[in-house]
């Protein structure tokens, strides 16, 4: 595999341009998390005096934003196949790994941008104190790793599944469970034990846990452990994306 930065940039550029060209996509991907934050956070906070639930779910909501955009971005290879652009990429003198890498970075850029918007909104309206600089950097790095592995997972799935009809199905039966069966909305150590088990197997839990630790100082695992698990998942997801995308045809 040759390292082709110019070509990786080309694939990245396309992802980012498509994103900035579509105002609707930007707005719609922020609408749902804001709704969650306001309705769920606001509502439950009132019922749980003495516990800043809003602060607790802010990292979960940021993760949700990142998840939607990342997986959507990876899985949208299905649409590229349907609308033909995949042929343009596969016919170019560009290695498959380059395409995978460019898409991961492009998808992560748009997703982290939106996660950042949620972060800023959260700082402004939830009363969570602004974390120290090291914490902010850590949150960004973890959010980026998280986003990259989700895009990669999306690419791997889209390379195997290929049918447009399954797109919605995937979004509902993959993204929703990953989100709800994680530590995004509830503290793991207060869940019933069966849910704790599931949530412990769900990589999303670790990304959320790490971000929460760095944002408000409470976490179930150590930050290092959260990073470790997330990096391991990224490696596996990247290898899977490369492997399956390499096998894909027009």
């Amino acid at each position, binding site marked *: 595999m040759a390292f082709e930065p110019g070509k990786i940039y*080309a694939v990245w550029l396309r992802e980012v341009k498509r994103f900035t060209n579509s105002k609707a996509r930007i707005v719609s991907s922020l609408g749902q998390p804001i709704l969650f934050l306001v309705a769920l956070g606001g509502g439950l906070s009132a019922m749980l005096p003495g516990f800043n639930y809003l602060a607790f779910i802010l990292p979960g909501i940021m993760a949700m934003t990142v998840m939607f955009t990342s997986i959507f971005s990876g899985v949208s290879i299905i649409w590229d196949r349907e609308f*033909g652009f995949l*042929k*343009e990429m596969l016919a170019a003198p560009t290695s498959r790994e380059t395409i995978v890498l460019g898409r991961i970075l492009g998808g992560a850029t748009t997703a982290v941008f939106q996660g950042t918007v949620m972060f800023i909104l959260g700082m402004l309206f939830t009363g969570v104190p602004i974390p120290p600089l090291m914490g902010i950097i850590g949150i960004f790095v973890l959010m980026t790793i998280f986003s990259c592995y989700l895009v990669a997972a999306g690419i791997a799935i889209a390379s195997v599944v290929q049918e447009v009809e399954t797109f919605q199905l995937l979004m509902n039966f993959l993204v929703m469970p990953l989100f709800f069966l994680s530590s995004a909305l509830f503290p793991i150590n207060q869940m019933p034990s069966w849910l704790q088990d599931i949530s412990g197997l769900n990589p999303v839990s670790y990304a959320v846990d790490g971000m929460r630790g760095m944002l408000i100082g409470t976490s179930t695992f150590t930050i290092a452990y959260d990073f470790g698990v997330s990096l391991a998942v990224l490696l596996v997801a990247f290898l899977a994306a490369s492997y399956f995308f390499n096998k894909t045809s027009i």
Partner: protein
Amino acid sequence: MDAVVVEKLEKKFNGFTAVDKISFNVKRGELFGFLGPNGAGKSTTIYMLTTLIAPTSGTANVNGFDIRTDSEAVRKSIGIVFQDPTVDIRLTAYDNLDIHGRLYGMAAQARKERIREVLELVELTEWKDKMVKTFSGGMRRRLEIARGLLHTPEVLFLDEPTLGLDPQTRRHIWQYIEKLRKGGIAMMLTTHYLEEADYLCDRVAIIDHGRIKALDTPRNLKGIIGGNIIRIEAREPQKLAEMLKKNGCCKAPKVEGTIVSFEVKEGGKLVPKIMSAASKAGIDVENIEMRMPSLEDVFIHYTGTSIREEKGAGGDMMMRRRARGF
């Protein structure tokens, strides 16, 4: 070495043979045509030559590189205009070209220069900053051609470049293709429009059911038919055909409805003879027509069916194109 050298190239899809061990060459600077009805195997051949699908057996060299073992070098040498649209409609025309140039590793200066050139060639300069989703089908097609040429390929593949376009736009695209030919690039074009193959191509291969049935210049292909085609419209076509066979005017007249048609060496002398023979036998001739053979006749000669009979399916393809291009 020729631009494209194809040897016994074969593609099977789950036992179904789409391309059946075909061989041909495309010379440097030549415009080579692949003429065949829907499902003949044209696109499948293009996909193999452009390394997008692997052949079942046989091989081909494109610009001197083996499509099986040297796909990266092949890809660098070629430009492709696919049958189905492949531009990104959510990007501007300029961005589509820019990203293509980057994917092909073009340096910044050369890329900008070439984008300007190809936009001018297909007359889209004014539209360069518009989103492609606002383009008409013809404009999108022109953009695809511009993109296929951007990285100055040695060989250009055009898979049905004018499918679904109106006659005026089609002529327009023919003009670009002719301009390119003057520039000396080798081109391989597929089509199921007879006029297109006839008008544009230096040599034409007639392909049907995955096999090449004939391959020559349009002129020579038409020469195979011999002299002329005679078509007679008569009230009693069967009787007329019998008579013509008996008096030696022709060997194998074909009867379709009220039309009797056949191929002859020299039609000019035969027409008066037929007319007088018919009136002697008391057969009414409504209309008699003599013409030079077209590629349509050549096609029928080799495949036994008219390429136009496939029109229904062709219409479908156009519908799909439009639906997808949305």
